């Protein structure tokens, strides 16, 4: 169920913005408008975010991602388009109503922390509550709770300038969480932190999300971060969204060269999962176990495998088992049933691919299952694979198959 919908958002700076929108819709280019002194920062952006999902918007500087974020809570008024949260159209609200929504339903975390230097850590964390008009005692209690959540217990009386960067951002996060807002907008929140702290913060966010299940829109220019955090990722370029999909979608089936070059340096072993590259069990039956026995049944294979991993396991964890011997690694689904296997060759070949992906050989499917094989099995192709986490099949426009081999199943 999507909680946040943004449809056909435009943001144009300069003279006659509405005019510019019409021209853009009609197909005018961004550079054309730039020459006239009009800047189209966001062009026809539409996104949907589900409850409890982290939606990452990724792009280089100037791609319009921060502008897009600010149109969501009205800090910048969209030139055209609508934003709906929980069914309420935010773009049509009066200033007063919008402030109310910002106070109660939306929180923001900033790149450079934006802590008020003339207030203590506790007062900063309690700021959102103060705006809401919550009485002091309750404010203090809830802010203290939020600080504890982000790991800053005991620092309430300190001042922002006494804290390190990472700690300051925790305060920023606590401030955003204290109001119990459901929608969190995070503007490159970890970009100003050093790599180790950054990792910690990402971990913490993911940890918190498990229990809090907030709807989060996260802006970043760091691909690894996007891959780590994003349930769904939108890639922006020059004001437009060029692709929306899961991390693997972006990685394995980039929409165009731009996206592909973006993802070039990503550490695939941490993004791709066993389930994405596995081959059917049948293809590996017939292998010989180290002790000489031939593996003929799925169960035998499973017993002889050097490791049995879940489909969501990142590839990086498969190296050691794959290198152990000639028996492939067994892959199971959430329920524990065997669904596939990963050979060392397969592993190597996938990693050796550049932006292209090669189809995995589709072989006959052994009749282990009872006719529901087609439904159970994931087609042995690295397209439209889905993470096992909660995910809708709302794939949109920019998803397409460069290579058209679809295993039709039986």
């Amino acid at each position, binding site marked *: 169920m999507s909680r946040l919908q943004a449809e056909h958002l435009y943001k144009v700076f300069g003279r006659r913005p509405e005019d510019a929108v019409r021209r853009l819709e009609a197909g005018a280019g961004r550079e054309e408008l730039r020459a006239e002194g009009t800047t189209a920062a966001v062009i026809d952006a539409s996104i949907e975010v589900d409850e409890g999902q982290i939606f990452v918007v990724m792009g280089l500087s100037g791609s319009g991602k921060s502008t897009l974020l600010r149109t969501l*809570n009205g*800090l910048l008024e969209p030139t055209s388009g609508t934003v709906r949260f929980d069914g309420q159209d935010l773009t049509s609200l009066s200033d007063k109503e919008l*402030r*109310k*929504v*910002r*106070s*109660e339903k*939306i*929180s*923001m975390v*900033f*790149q*450079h922390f*934006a802590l*008020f*230097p*003339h*207030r203590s850590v506790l007062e900063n964390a309690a*700021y*959102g509550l103060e*705006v*809401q008009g919550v009485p002091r005692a309750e404010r203090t209690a809830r802010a203290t709770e939020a600080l504890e959540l982000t790991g800053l217990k005991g620092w309430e009386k300190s*001042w922002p300038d006494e804290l390190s960067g990472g700690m300051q951002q925790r305060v920023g996060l606590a*401030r955003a969480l204290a*109001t119990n807002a459901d929608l969190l*907008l995070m503007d490159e929140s970890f970009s100003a932190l050093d790599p180790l702290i950054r990792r910690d913060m990402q971990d913490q966010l993911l940890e918190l999300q498990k229990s809090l299940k907030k709807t989060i829109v996260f802006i970043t220019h760091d691909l690894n971060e996007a891959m780590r955090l994003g349930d769904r990722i939108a890639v922006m370029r020059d004001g437009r969204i060029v692709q929306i999909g899961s991390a693997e979608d972006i990685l394995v089936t980039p929409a165009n060269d731009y996206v592909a070059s973006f993802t070039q340096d990503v550490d695939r072993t941490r993004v791709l999962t066993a389930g994405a590259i596995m081959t059917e069990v049948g293809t590996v039956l017939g292998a010989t176990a180290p002790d000489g026995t031939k593996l003929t049944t799925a169960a035998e294979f499973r017993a002889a495998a050097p490791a049995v991993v879940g489909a969501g396991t990142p590839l990086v964890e498969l190296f050691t088992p794959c290198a152990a011997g000639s028996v492939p690694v067994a892959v199971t689904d959430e329920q524990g049933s065997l669904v596939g296997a990963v050979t060392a060759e397969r592993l190597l070949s996938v990693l050796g691919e550049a932006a292209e992906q090669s189809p995995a050989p589709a072989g006959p499917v052994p009749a282990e299952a009872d006719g529901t094989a087609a439904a159970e099995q994931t087609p042995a192709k690295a397209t439209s694979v889905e993470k096992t986490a909660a995910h809708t099949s709302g794939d949109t426009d920019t998803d397409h198959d460069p290579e058209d081999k679809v295993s039709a199943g039986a």
Partner: protein
Amino acid sequence: MPRIPIGSWADSLVEWLRDHAEWLFHFVTTVLGGFYDGILAVLSGPEPLLLTGIFAVIAWWLRGLPAAVLTFIGFALIDSIEQWHQTMQSLSLVLVACIITVAVAVPLGVWAARNRAVSGAVRPVLDLMQTMPAMVYLIPGILFFGLGAVPGIVSTIVFSMPPAVRMTELGIRQVDGELVEAADAFGTHPRRTLFRVQLPLALPTIMAGINQVIMLALSMVVIAGMVGGAGLGGTVYLSLSSVDVKLGAEGGLAVVILAVYLDRMTSALNQRVSPLGRRALAKAQAALGGLKFLQWKPATSLATVAVVVLALVAGGMSVLGKDKGSGAAGTDGNGRPISLGYVNWDEGKATTFLWKEILEQRGYKPRAEALDAGPLFTGQARGDIDVQTNAWLPTTHAEYWKKYKDKLEDLGAWYDKTSLEIAVPSYMKGIKTLDDLKGKGGTFGGKIVGIEPGAGEMKLLKDKVLKDYGLGGEYKVMESSTSSMLTELDRSIHDKKPIAVTLWSPHWAYDKYKLTKLKDPKGSFGSGDSLHMLGRKGFSKDEPQVANWMKNFHLDEKQLTSLESEVKNAGTGHEQDGVRAWLKQHPGLVNKLAPSAKADYAKGKDAGKTPTLGYPAWDEGIATTYLWKNILEKRGYRPKLQNLDVGPMWTGLSTGQIDVETDAWLPVAQKQYWDKYKKDLVDVGAWYDKTSLEIAVPSYVKGVKTLDDLRKHKDTFGGKIIGIEPGTGEMKRLKSVVSPAYGLDGFDVTEAGTSAMLTELERAYAKKEPIAVVLWSPHWAYSKYHLTKLKDPQGTWGANNQIKTIGNKSFPKKFPEFNGWLKNWKMSAAELGSLEKEIQAAGKGNENKGVEKWIDAHPGIVDKMAPVK
């Protein structure tokens, strides 16, 4: 380029404003003037050292102990060099200007920070305000607001507003945009963002702006001094115009002390006001080690308590202490104010202070102000100044006279031995006349050092004198100012260099240096000016007597120069002492210069003293005390009166709080008080002994002459005797002794009060009804009505009291002259009765009028009661 008449436009604008916006200027003058007066009253109330203590506490609060000590020393020094009052005036001016400036500048700065259009519009206006020379504001300033503190305040506001606005705008803009965005993102209303985020963070910059305002305001004090704003600016200006280095140094030092104090305090204020500053302070305080007490600053609450305590002490002292006796009753002036203005030339200063003294003696409240010639004439034309004593006409001040003569009155010339000339130092040989200057142009560097370009002498010199003597080619007349010319003269004489200056007589320069007046055989300089007294238009109508005195005023050369000399010797700030010294050498001159019927009273030996007379609310007490007040004032004393009940009165006499009272009834009626306190008191003497207690009846009641007759005619009186307060000695005596003795028990004695009895008497007397009242003598009733005291052959009423004057035991030593007068003073019953009657007739609050009437009716009584040799 064709001549664009911008100056004329500006002039027309000023004129138009004066005609149409008078109400606005009047409003501004009233508001600013009132504000200034209020603050000044608060600052000048307390004793200087007490206020210094308060300043020191503030310094301690803001900057610690060393600063407090230095503050105390600094301000005590200001008091020592006699610049305290001026410093308070300047401080008041600075405070008023700053408060108004900040109140306008901060909101304006905030607005400019949020709105580009406003920022752009405001910038050029601020530039204009900041760069236009402040002197230029002064001319219209005086025209719009008159002389005094207000034009100075307005100029200061205009000059110091730009930095405050700019700093505020800067401070707000400099607040991190991300913080404002964060506040916005959490739903904060823009106004709350301003107050909760932007202002607190911009505060250090804004405080820096305020600090600037104060410093600029102080730099304007001199300008304020030139237009009657007095204060330290007045001191500096005065020193400038009289080339008085001593005074200049002291005035300048006071300015420095004040400036440093205000600068340090306002910059430290940031620590107490802005949240970031407070944090820094808390951190610093927490981190103190060793010499902690030096850096320790008391908490705001503690400092506030200290300041409040000091302020209460100061306030209490001023209530108890500074009671100035009136001294104006029965005088010509009756306390009316008169303002005298003078340019700081010797004869002007001397004659102004002479007239100040004379007017004070005649009971006026004169004020003397030193001003530049321009503001003086303008101020007089506006009506802010009543009189100036030293207008040089027809030449020197011709321009001013021409401009303002419709608004001025010429009160006549008092001196005419003036001359205008060129003078050279006597060491220049062979130069004795104006002709001698010819051919010597080279020696003098081709110039004659002149004074203000607008002075009549300068015009005369250029138009006539140089031409007549053919000096135009060789000599150029340098325009400067009187003080510059005098400084130049001093320098040249010091270095024994040649110099020719424009000068005039009389002038102190002729006393100080050996100069030669160059003879003017052709008479080109004219016959010299006369010195005129000028009044503002309408002055003769408002103060005909003073105007008359001034019209008849003359001094000869010897008198003038000796007066100038005495004034100069007395020194700045003590001119009036010099005048008094001079008047001592010229006895009777004041009476000659300002003859007055009322003032034909010689001053007593102890004139100026302030005895405190106590009196009970009894008729004879009121009457005699007001009589003595009047007489003492005529003799130049400044008596104070205190109305008290009998008990507190005697106690006050014993402690010395009261010096003397004239209404003690002894030896009987007030015996107990005398017995209690007599070791602290002195019996000055009885002045009345015809007191008695009696029952009285109107004289129209025939055949009732004695108390026995009363008994016999009981029915005539309806069996009633109208009595007074039941607890009084008289009523008790009536009941216990008199009544039984004469068999009056059958009478119904009404017990009410004295006023009820008198009212009843009045009523019955008007209707010619018979009535018997309890009464006593002396009493005004005996003057008002024809009454018969019922004889008391048996003497039942007891021994009579005398009315005595009793004083505190120190009274004869403190007031020997007054003591002597009281000792010899006696009054008859008729005198007392008529005095009481007049005072009654005049009514409460107008006792003195009654006294005056009585004195007029008793010629020579003053000399009889208070003789002086």
